[in-house]
């Protein structure tokens, strides 16, 4: 036992050393706390280049899927609602928060007056209705699930919209604070149809200028924007630079001014540079290990019985979780720069705070072994863990492999590229895989699609009536305190079933040149550049 612990510690030491020698020199306190903005005064003019970790997909709010795409939209497509630095929903294109009928099935909101799209046409209630219905109905829409409860939308006045719901749907306001709440110019939609993606026109501080696939997306200041006096930059250029080392080198050379989604290793490197500054905010998402507990026929199909010890025996899954040390994973793999997690909802959620890291179960190898004995399974329990091809994912897999070995598991790692992983996990051809979600404002966005029976992203094959009932109750319950209780119960139940073993929560790390101010990075992880500029 002692020898195994020493071996585990040695693996941890070697991995932390290879992960980044800088971590041994820089105390973690340098990146502790949160820093979401820099309010120094800025001068007018200039071009800001923001490096993204991937090329965004379609620049059409109805079809868009990626987090990097949301960052670009934050510069050119405002939403009915937005969030502030506390994660609280605030009106953006809407004039005020919506009012909801007593039965929760009618939602009404007003729009700000005098707004114009980048093509010069007027934003009114008809435009909002057109966009909402397009988000729900367009073939191939990516907003269908989140707007599924929407039965109808109508303009009841020039600036008033009434939404009719199939059932009470409290998460709607948070949904409208994301892409489903983006209002597109009806004139542009009519003119370009599905090619709107090449000519996007919304209300925003910047308007679309051009896109060169794989190279850049260029936005220019929109003089028609209702708060144009608060916009200082002339242009914003978004450049996809997938490699973290290259992003950091470009920050250091001054070729880019903002680096989005920096990894802990890159952040450590950035901290040694006097000309760079760090923004960070807690993520609303989660990361963990998905376990196949009933996905026999594929996503959306009826879950069934899988005859592996992991799927068959809840005690085996519990033992697997007890063999894992979340704190050590955070320290070894992520240099202590993320947060251990054991639930789908962030403790920072302003709507229904989730389980705090301190409440997560600790590692208990003795109990894990006992559970395996009680389950009567043959040890070692063999599990194939699919990990993505990023260095962080590989290191996570190696640490999990070393930890669980001690308890009686034999984990083999299979690095799998993204698209293949998606196909294999959706079709149920896996034991376990590294699974994560960037997070949504409302807890429902982190839960319903993943944990509900036949949910749109329930690749685990999880099916639990109690969870299904709690999801529905959470959606219908308007009282924040009651909602909090429902999601606490949901988390407890999900952790009992263990379709997904939650491990850690990332932080949104953004590095910028010190000559840049006014950038904002909130819990949704988007880089907001509306008020950004070069410091005076």
């Amino acid at each position, binding site marked *: 036992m002692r020898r195994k612990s020493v071996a585990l510690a040695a693996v941890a030491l070697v991995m932390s050393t290879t992960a980044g020698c800088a971590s041994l020199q820089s105390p973690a306190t340098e990146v502790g706390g949160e820093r979401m903005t820099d309010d120094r005064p800025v001068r007018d003019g200039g071009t800001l280049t923001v490096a993204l970790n991937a*090329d*965004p*997909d*379609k*620049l*059409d709010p109805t*079809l868009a*899927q*990626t987090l990097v795409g949301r960052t670009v939209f934050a510069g050119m497509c405002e939403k009915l609602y937005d969030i502030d630095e506390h994660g609280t929903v605030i009106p953006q294109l809407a004039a005020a928060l919506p009012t909801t009928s007593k039965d929760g099935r009618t939602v009404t909101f007003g729009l700000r007056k005098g707004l114009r799209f980048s093509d010069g046409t007027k934003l009114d209630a008809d435009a909002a209705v057109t966009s909402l219905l397009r988000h729900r109905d367009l*073939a*191939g*829409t*990516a*907003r*269908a*699930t989140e707007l599924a409860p929407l039965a109808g939308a109508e303009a009841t006045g020039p600036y008033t919209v009434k939404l009719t719901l199939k059932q009470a749907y409290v998460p709607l306001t948070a949904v409208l604070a994301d892409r489903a709440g983006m209002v597109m110019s009806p004139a542009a939609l009519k003119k370009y149809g*599905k*090619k709107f*993606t*090449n000519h996007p026109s919304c209300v925003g501080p910047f308007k679309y200028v051009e*896109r*060169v*696939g*794989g*190279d*850049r997306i260029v936005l220019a200041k929109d003089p028609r924007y209702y708060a144009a006096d608060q916009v200082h930059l002339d242009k914003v250029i978004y*450049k*996809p*630079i*997938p*490699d973290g*080392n*290259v992003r950091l*080198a*470009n920050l*250091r*050379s*001054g*070729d*880019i001014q903002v680096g989005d989604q920096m990894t802990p290793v890159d952040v450590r490197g950035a901290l040694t540079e006097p000309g760079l500054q760090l923004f960070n905010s807690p993520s609303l998402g989660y990361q963990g290990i998905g376990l196949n507990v009933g996905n026999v026929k594929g*996503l*959306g199909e009826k879950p069934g019985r899988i005859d592996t010890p992991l799927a068959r025996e809840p005690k085996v899954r519990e033992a697997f979780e007890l063999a894992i040390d979340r704190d050590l994973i955070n320290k070894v793999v992520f240099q202590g720069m993320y947060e251990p997690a054991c639930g789908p909802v962030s403790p920072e959620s302003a709507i229904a705070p989730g389980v705090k890291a301190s409440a997560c179960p600790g590692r208990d190898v003795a109990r894990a072994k006992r559970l395996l004995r009680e389950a009567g399974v043959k040890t070692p329990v063999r599990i194939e863990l699919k990990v993505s091809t990023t260095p962080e994912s590989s290191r996570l897999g190696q640490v999990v492999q070393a930890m669980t070995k001690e308890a009686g598991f034999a984990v083999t790692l299979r690095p799998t*590229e*993204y*698209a*293949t992983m*998606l*196909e*294999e996990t*959706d079709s149920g051809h896996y034991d376990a895989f590294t699974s994560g979600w960037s997070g949504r404002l409302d807890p429902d966005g982190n839960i319903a*699609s993943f944990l509900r029976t036949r949910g*749109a*992203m329930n690749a685990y094959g999880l099916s639990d009536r109690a969870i299904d009932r709690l999801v529905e109750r959470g959606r219908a319950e308007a009282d924040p305190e009651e909602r909090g209780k429902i999601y606490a119960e949901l988390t407890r139940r999900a952790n009992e079933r263990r379709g997904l073993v939650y491990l850690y929560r990332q932080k949104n790390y953004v590095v910028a040149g010190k000559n840049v101010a006014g950038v904002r990075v909130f819990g949704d992880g988007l880089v907001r550049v509306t008020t950004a500029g070069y410091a005076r």
Partner: protein
Amino acid sequence: MSLSLKTARPVPVRLSPMTSYLLTRIRQSLITLVLVSMVVFAGIRALPGDPALALAGEERSPAALAAIRADYGLDDNIAVQYGRFIGHAITGDLGTSSRTGLPVADAITAALPVTLELAALSLLLAVVVGIGAGIVAAVRRGRPEEWLANALALLGLSVPTFWLGMVLVLGFAIALPVFSASGYVPFAADPPDNLRRMVLPAVVLGSGLAAVVMRQTRAAMLDSLSADYVRTARAKGLSRREVIGTHALRNSLVTVVTVLGLQLGHLISGAVVTEQIFVLPGFGKLTIDAVFTRDYATLQGVVLCTSAAYILINLLVDVAYSLIDPRIRLGGAR
């Protein structure tokens, strides 16, 4: 009737050996291109990972997937898909990127000049440095100049591209900011800025090729310098410059041009890593992005164009051969 047939018979055209050789090679190249397009098309579809799933993202219900497959024609028979692709490709329409919604032809048109410029600069560097160093190494055999050239060639061959790129960025874009670390500006728009951004990538990509060219030139030159015709040239009293430049080098170039032709194709495909390091929006970057997102339309467009480039380069190399060595031309004509 027979008379009219005789009248309609085309008058046989006597082609010169060079034209005949060229036509044969062009015909062979077109057949190769069609075969390559079939292999590429089938090969891409054999990749694991469903493009509809990659596109669907958060909406992976059977209905959503069916809508995506119908939209992009992914549920059609592969032969139908190929027919549609090739039919459109002939008219210059390579489809629309399933990821970005941008026309593939536009993406390729934007990426092609970047990679071609990078390849051309790298080739220039490789030719100038490689052939120069190769001649010096052969002529100064057994002396420090040869050891230095060999050491540089070994370095050029063994240093990993990614490492060399990062070191050059650290040295010449950060510590000594002479060059730019990333991005592309067309030469026509701003020549100095273009070169500021392209020199480091060209050095990274061209260093390996320069090493290969140097070694080939050195070996070929050593053979030539010990050949009878060079001894004869010397005996005739030709100057050292004429012996090396006109006789030895010209004969050595057949081997070197062969290597360059083969390596030029590698330059285009090998630009992948260099383009990632220097964030150049070229073919390599386009290909990688398309592979990871299962963007079939972009991927098959890019691979088809790259294959066409390979075939064209091979054709040009063959033509260059025939110009350098007339025996090849005549042999081809027969």
